[in-house]
């Protein structure tokens, strides 16, 4: 019998593979399995992505924030050589006019500190820009938040990104089905975009911090008030696409007074007394969520970003400055089905109710 013909008829017709074939197929399967396992491990290990995050304690807005932010930036390895000559756009969270409600927007003191730090590092220009999601009236928001007066005193220019000239650019993320994103020319003309958010809960996304803050780069003139196209595409997906496309260089989080409950606007003030900084916004947000006593694996855009835009696993994030446990403050979240996954009972139990002892810190670090 012709062996070759037998092989073509297949095993149902009495074909018996040779030792070489058995080992060949087996080897291929093992190799494929090994590769797949390796890929899974690689993904589990967030594709080798690692990042540094700095946490600094800040008791209030009257603290020496220039030194605090300056030290944090230095800890991240950012120096004069890197900053000199750069045009830097600071993107605060100026979501709403807020007379008497300082927990709604990024505090002007944090923005002023960042301006001063970058000027001292010889930045060519530091500007502040925002595209509010609900309000078309930027001047009103600047008036009522106190940001307008602060920027005037610092002689820093503010740009209304909602009404800026806009440019279509390729969507570098593709989590949404949007082929292009329209970005303000001002944001494209700078060297660095620095997200300077407020640490807040968010009734749709769970948490709003460094990454979600970049929603406020998208011009309302194209996306509307609210930016409904992005909502229709999914808030998490849109956050990922915007971050992949804008490629922010740094974030400085105002966690001195944040917001809990019905954020990002109607919630209550919550003092976390810290500033969190880092070059990788995904890692900073994961750390910020841990600082809030919440579960980063329950935040949709963070699990989407994990291994793609940055790390969220604690083992892949090097915490500098204060440990998380030293500033962890439990933030209340609305009791809604879509938010339950970000409330971690384990983390809540770890919340320090008094100043943290060394023993408690050591116990926390074991986890």
């Amino acid at each position, binding site marked *: 019998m012709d062996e070759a013909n037998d092989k073509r008829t297949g095993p149902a017709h009495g074909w018996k593979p040779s030792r070489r074939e058995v080992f060949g197929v087996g080897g291929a399967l093992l190799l494929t399995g090994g590769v797949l396992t390796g890929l899974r491990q690689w993904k589990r290990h967030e594709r080798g992505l690692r990042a540094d995050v700095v946490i600094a304690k800040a008791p209030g807005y009257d603290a020496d924030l220039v030194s605090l932010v300056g030290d944090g930036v230095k800890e991240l390895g950012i120096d004069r050589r890197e900053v000199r000559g750069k045009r830097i756009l600071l993107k605060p969270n100026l979501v709403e006019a807020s007379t008497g409600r300082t927990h709604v927007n990024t505090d002007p003191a944090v923005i002023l500190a960042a301006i001063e730090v970058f000027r001292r590092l010889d930045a060519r220009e530091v500007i502040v820009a925002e595209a509010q999601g609900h309000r078309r009236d930027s*001047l*009103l928001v600047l008036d009522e938040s106190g940001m307008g007066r602060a920027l005037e005193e610092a002689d820093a220019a503010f740009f209304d990104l909602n009404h800026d000239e806009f440019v279509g650019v390729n969507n570098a993320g593709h989590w949404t089905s949007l082929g292009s994103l329209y970005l303000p020319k001002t944001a494209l003309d700078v060297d660095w975009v620095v997200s300077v958010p407020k640490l807040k809960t968010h*009734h749709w996304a769970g948490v709003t911090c460094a990454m979600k803050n970049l929603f406020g780069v998208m011009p309302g*003139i194209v996306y*509307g008030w609210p930016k409904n196209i992005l909502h229709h595409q999914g808030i998490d997906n849109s956050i990922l696409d915007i971050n992949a496309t804008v490629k922010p260089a740094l974030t400085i989080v105002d966690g001195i007074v944040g917001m809990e409950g019905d954020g990002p606007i109607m919630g209550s003030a919550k003092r976390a007394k810290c500033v969190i900084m880092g070059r990788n916004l995904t890692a900073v947000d994961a750390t910020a969520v841990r600082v809030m006593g919440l579960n980063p694996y329950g935040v949709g855009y963070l699990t989407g970003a994990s291994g793609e835009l940055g790390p969220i696993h604690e083992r892949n994030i090097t915490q500098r400055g204060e440990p998380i446990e030293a500033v962890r403050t439990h933030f209340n979240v609305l009791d809604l089905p879509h938010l339950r996954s970000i409330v971690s009972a384990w983390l809540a139990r770890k919340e320090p109710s008094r100043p943290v002892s060394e023993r408690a810190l050591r116990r926390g670090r074991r986890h």
Partner: protein
Amino acid sequence: MACIALAAHGVEPQRFENGLAWLSNVRRPDGSVPVSSAVSSPAWPTGLAVLAWVCGRERVGPRHEPDIEKAAHWLLATRGCRLPPTDEVGHDTTLQGWPWVEGTHSWAEPTAYAILALRAVGQAAHPRVREGVRLLLDRTLPSGGWNYGNTRVFDSTLRPFVATTGIVLSALAGERSAAPIDASIAYLTPALRDVRSPLSVGWGFIGLTAWNSRPNDARSRLARCAVRTRNEQPNTLYDTLLLLAAVESCPLVRVTTGDPHG
């Protein structure tokens, strides 16, 4: 908006005819006027373009009638997408109105612009306009006034905005007085005293003027706001709104009011 303001202040036609012609050039074959000649969407400025062409009609003649007709047709064909009824938000998500961006949900400001434009072309009684009016009334905040177009999210009642309240009151001019409108005027009159930004000041006075509730010191307050704007934030849109608000019979209202039922 600049064309409307210039026409309202009796500026010679050739000064704003270029603006009207530019709008005609930007207009797409389907009648829509997008935010920029570089894109086909969004086209929420279409309502404002209709108002500009209508306001310019008596000064430059009927040359923009085809623009008006096509743009009005596009407005009537464009609607916000319905969302399933939900307890998460306070408004009736099945009312369609007009969206900022085609294919998305409806909001207060674009709905107001569309209503103003369709009234200006004699379509006040059209079912789409009547539905738009119902939408605006549905989205009035419990304490009066409007924000971007939502009254409640989960358990929190939201706050009104001065500028949007002025815009919506302008769009409702000509409607029969109703409790939500009275409450909104009652909110806006004192709230307007606390703001200095030209966008809010301009629209606030336009809205109050539309309902014969213009404060006596409107002109001096507008002048103060204009000086501040000139010194601190020169901007064509701000100048335009303050100029429009300075006219005691606001042209937006003059060309759009009438019997809402035809």
